[in-house]
């Protein structure tokens, strides 16, 4: 799963019958620098994500990609990204950050 910031939603006027009733989010995947900065920004290439959890704009989610994104739907559904969870909190401390802090201390 990648992490993504919810930036909006998408409503279709026409769709395949198999997609009818599927809620769609507009999501910007979160890059490592933005995740470390906790700045609420995504920074990745925007994608559309199927959803059943209804996160608000500005919330961070984790999204499954690939054929597994359609697993929760009982009938075959043409989605390749799905909101699996809404993030409450996270720890993200790559060693680069620790390294630069140590370098500043020297």
């Amino acid at each position: 799963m990648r992490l993504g910031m919810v930036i909006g939603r998408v409503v279709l006027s026409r769709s395949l019958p198999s997609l009818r009733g599927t809620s769609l989010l507009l999501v910007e995947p979160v890059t490592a620098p933005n995740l470390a900065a906790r700045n609420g920004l995504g920074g990745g290439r925007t994608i559309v994500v199927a959803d059943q959890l209804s996160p608000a704009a500005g919330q961070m989610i984790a999204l499954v990609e690939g054929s597994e994104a359609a697993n929760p739907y009982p009938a075959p559904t043409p989605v390749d990204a799905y909101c699996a969870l809404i993030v409450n909190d996270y720890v993200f401390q790559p060693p680069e950050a620790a390294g630069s802090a140590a370098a500043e201390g020297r």
Partner: protein
Amino acid sequence: MFLARIDGTLTASRKDHRLAGVRFLIGQRLQPDGSTIGEPLVFLDRMGAGRGSTVLVSSDGTIARDWLGKGVPARLVVVGIVDRVGPRPAAEDRAS
């Protein structure tokens, strides 16, 4: 499968019900030189991998399905904790 370094964890109270009780790790995919590539990823873990460890991740969703049920929306699972990564043995080493 690919190698990744574990850089953190995350918690989520609202999630697909099949993911209840699962431990989530945040990691970054590793290149052979130890640098990271791509966006941070969330892995499902039941091996107890800790921050800083290098892990083997499988993107075969059948592992998650066998573990958590058919409808689970998950793909990336930690399937091993890496002890070491070395060069491919040379032909002469294998012959001896």
